[in-house]
């Protein structure tokens, strides 16, 4: 108990206090150099274009990446749960494998796959007549490339949750719909999706929270570039805190990220409640 208290609640309170100071490399050497600056860190952040760029990049990643990832998970789960599927155990393991791999290692693999000259992805594209794309070197393509990678890495996780959710939908409902002559598309729309609604809510809450914490992908694949197009909020915090040692500013970034996550979660829960999912 004491350990959790010491290593969790205290830090959160301390993070807020820190964000009100100008804690930097001098304060690291001697606490006497520490000054209380009130909300100045927050003011400076809100005036810093790179911070806004990081927020915009992170939101881009979430808004495009989360729906793609959930769609991939749901599609894979439906295939796995189809009664026509064979070798389910093997397919489930294969589709889930990327989830347990080490993010840094697979990011290294993908950086090579996406290589502008020797990468297999460009080779595949050239075979169907598409000109090579400088995936990680072009500010327009770097974020889509990272999203593609993140979807590949993560979709298996939600797939497993969807599979469990699909198993709770009673078979009678499908039977009844079939007798009523509903096509498989209509069965999906009127039976499967409403039955899965609570699971979709849960999965989107978890996935958004996870995607807001984008860090290792840009760290390994692009180092935030090109032209700062892949600097995420957390990457920005890391550079502020552990490259420039502006720990006060970094704490303020961490707190703003926390606030963003809280707002998104609360809004989602409110929407869900209004629609009667909760």
């Amino acid at each position, binding site marked *: *108990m004491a*350990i*959790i208290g010491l*290593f*969790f609640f205290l*830090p*959160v309170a*301390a*993070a807020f206090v*820190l964000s009100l100071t100008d804690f930097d490399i001098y304060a690291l050497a001697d606490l006497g150099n520490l000054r209380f600056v009130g909300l100045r860190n927050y003011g400076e952040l809100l005036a810093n274009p790179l911070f806004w760029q990081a927020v915009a990049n992170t939101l881009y990643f979430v808004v495009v990446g989360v729906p793609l990832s959930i769609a991939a998970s749901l599609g*894979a789960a439906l*295939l796995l749960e189809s009664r*026509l*599927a064979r070798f389910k155990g*093997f*397919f489930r393991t*294969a*589709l*889930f*494998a*990327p989830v*347990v*791999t*080490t*993010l*840094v*290692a*697979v990011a*290294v*693999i993908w950086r*090579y*796959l996406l*290589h502008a000259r020797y*990468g*297999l992805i460009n*080779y595949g594209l050239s075979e169907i007549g598409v000109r090579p794309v400088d995936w990680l070197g072009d500010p327009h393509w770097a974020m889509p490339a990272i999203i593609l990678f993140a979807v590949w890495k993560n979709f*298996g996780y939600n797939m*497993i*949750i969807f599979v*469990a959710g699909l198993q709770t939908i009673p078979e009678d409902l499908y039977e009844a719909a079939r007798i009523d002559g509903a096509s498989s598309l209509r069965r999906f729309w009127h039976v499967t999706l409403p039955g899965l609604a609570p699971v979709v809510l*849960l999965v989107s809450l*978890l996935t958004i*929270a996870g995607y807001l*914490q984008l*860090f*290792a992908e840009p*760290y*390994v694949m692009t180092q935030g570039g090109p032209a700062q197009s892949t600097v995420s909020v957390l990457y920005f*915090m*890391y550079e502020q805190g*552990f490259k420039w040692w502006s*720990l006060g500013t*970094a*704490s303020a970034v*961490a*707190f703003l*990220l*926390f606030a963003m*996550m*809280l707002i998104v979660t609360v809004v989602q829960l409110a929407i869900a409640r209004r629609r009667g999912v909760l």
Partner: protein
Amino acid sequence: MKRLPASVAVNILLVLASAVALFPLLWMLSVSFMRPGEADSFPPPFLPRAPSLAAYKELFAHQGVGRDFANSVFLASAATALSLLFNVAAGYAFAKLRFAGRDRVFQILLGALVIPGQVAMIPLFLMLKTVGLVNNFGGVLIPAAAGVFGIFLVRQYALSIPDELLEAARVDGASEFRIFRSIVLPALRPILVTLATFTFLATWNDFMWPLIVLSDDRLYTLPVALASLSREHVQDAELMMAGAVVTVLPVLLLFVALQRYYIRGLLAGSLKG
């Protein structure tokens, strides 16, 4: 008869999806056995012309990957042991022992799940720095030991142990420790395997925290070492792929061996929301 095309389509789609999921991993394996420079050609080769261990030799002989591997194994094992010790005791206490404010404290803990770890990172770093645990394995391990998720996992499972069983043992005069060892631990065995697998994989794969805490490259874990290697040897595809193999293969094998337990933990964890 109408079923046949649909069945073929479903299975073909599954094969395609699995191929997309597995291809990068298989290609990593293939490229890691190529000779230096072989992978830098166009079109990219699928298989090594003459399989070679050159990249692995370079990694272990000159890049100190053997040491990073040992660090990772040690840290992941130690974190697993600590997490079992701590979370099992705490989870059992929350489920079965009566103490003042038990449910209230548990609710606060669940609330803490909402707070992302990154908020606590900087103060935690400074705190560890004051007590001399930065650039030190202790600093990596301490936060790993006390996970709210682990306590939750064990508690949910421990709730299913019948109270009558524990009462009967108490009436027979068994000490609390004896009860814990002879009744509770055996009953919790499956969930302990789940928790151990989870902690091991999470610690092995963790990147940001060890990156922040460890500055001495002799202490690097595999992911941190690989990231720093990849910033130096950007063009050296064979070397990077061999490094990725060394990092990914152990956890992948562990997962395949223990996936039943892992998936159960994942489903239990998703109910927390």
